[in-house]
């Protein structure tokens, strides 16, 4: 449980800044290739987790381009579990943030510009404070997704006791080894927790409008 919470919390922390920037770019930006960026952001949500896990293993593996360049051994470690969770949580965060940020009235941002505020300052002082509830909802949803990550973690981070065996993987192991009581207990915990998360996210999302 603790391992799962650590992985999910770190994944969300890693997704926060790029997710917000991506969400803002998609909400406000009118740049070439916007549709492509939008599609690429969505891709990890649509792709099967096994595809993501395999790609991570090939790209970030010891024999892959990153592994060879840096000499790092990422797969089957705690950081690998965090990376897998980040990749699947980021799109959910970015899309929810995009929705929240586009709710902020353009007039207010333009008003800030005419009053001489820079774009960056406007983003910090006007846009973010107005969208904070939606961003919080994005954080909560991304956390739930990261906590529930299974497929990519199994392939890229393995299922190593005490290192990468997050709750969803523990349920899988408990089932495979015939420990149905443990499986059921973990399923109950994860279901209750996720329900709570979604309720909170919905509440935040509704009030944001």
């Amino acid at each position, binding site marked *: 449980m603790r391992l799962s919470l650590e992985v999910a919390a770190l994944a969300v922390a890693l997704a926060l800044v790029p997710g917000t920037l991506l969400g803002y770019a998609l909400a406000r930006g009118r740049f070439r290739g916007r549709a492509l960026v939008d599609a690429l952001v969505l891709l990890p949500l649509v792709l099967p987790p096994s595809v993501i896990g395999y790609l991570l*293993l090939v790209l970030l*593996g*010891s*024999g892959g381009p990153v*592994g060879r360049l840096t000499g790092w*051994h990422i*797969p*089957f470690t705690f950081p690998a579990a965090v990376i897998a969770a980040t990749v699947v949580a980021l799109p959910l965060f970015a899309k929810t943030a995009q929705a929240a940020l586009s709710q902020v009235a353009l007039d207010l941002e333009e008003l800030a510009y005419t009053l001489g505020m820079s774009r960056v300052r406007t983003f910090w002082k006007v846009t973010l404070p107005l969208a904070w509830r939606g961003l919080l909802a994005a954080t909560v949803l991304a956390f739930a997704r990261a906590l529930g990550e299974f497929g990519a973690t*199994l392939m890229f981070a*393995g*299922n*190593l*006791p005490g290192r990468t065996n997050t709750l969803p993987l523990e349920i899988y*192991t408990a*089932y*495979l*080894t*015939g420990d149905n009581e443990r499986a059921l207990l973990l399923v109950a915990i994860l279901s209750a927790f996720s329900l709570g998360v979604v309720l909170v996210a919905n509440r935040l999302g509704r009030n944001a409008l």
Partner: protein
Amino acid sequence: MRLFGVALLWCGLGGATERSLLVSAAVSLKEPFEALAQRFTKDHPEIKITFNFAASGDLVRQIEAGAPVDLLATAAAEPMDRLERAHLIEPASRRTIAHNRLVLVTPRNKWLKWAELMRARRVAIGDPRTVPAGQYALELLDRLGLRAQLEPRLLYAANVRVALDLAARGEAEAAIVYATDPVAASGLVVVDRAPDDLVVSYPMAVVSASQERELGRAFIALVMGPGGRQLLRGHGFLLP
């Protein structure tokens, strides 16, 4: 909707005319079993053989959960014993079809013996919770007195072929696999062998709930016959 109806009809007809055999087998049996299936369908052209290759522990769990499997071959006696006690396989059909041996494999440039395993940063084995090869590997490490030291460096793989793949990809400096696994094809070399008395046995039996028990027994007879024995030996298995 009409297309759906046609598809349904087609499936129904197909099911009526084509008989099939679903064989769950330890993944280490993949190559000889696929070759055997070709021979079997030569004699029985109306029969379609489908394989379900996985770790023996996973296969046994599926049968306990009621998977519609006709035949089972595992890489250890213990999971088969468990099914036999639960009356899920036909005891009379049970045969030991082959033996195997564990080996230590490494990439070409990292030559290690058992005694030097502590130099490896990571060693891949099958997940001992479901993979017999992993259980044998732990038993072997126990005997070598390396288990306690090496345990934090072990990478557990979903089955023995994944353990092989992890060494091939460079995620592990060594892997403990079967002598029959496609080591050379993975760009690896066998650097050491397990002692002779650590023998792996493959039992095979007909699943009690199968609708094709007669065919299942015929398949086992083929495996035990001269053709099957020759094929298994050709793939490096030891014969009972």
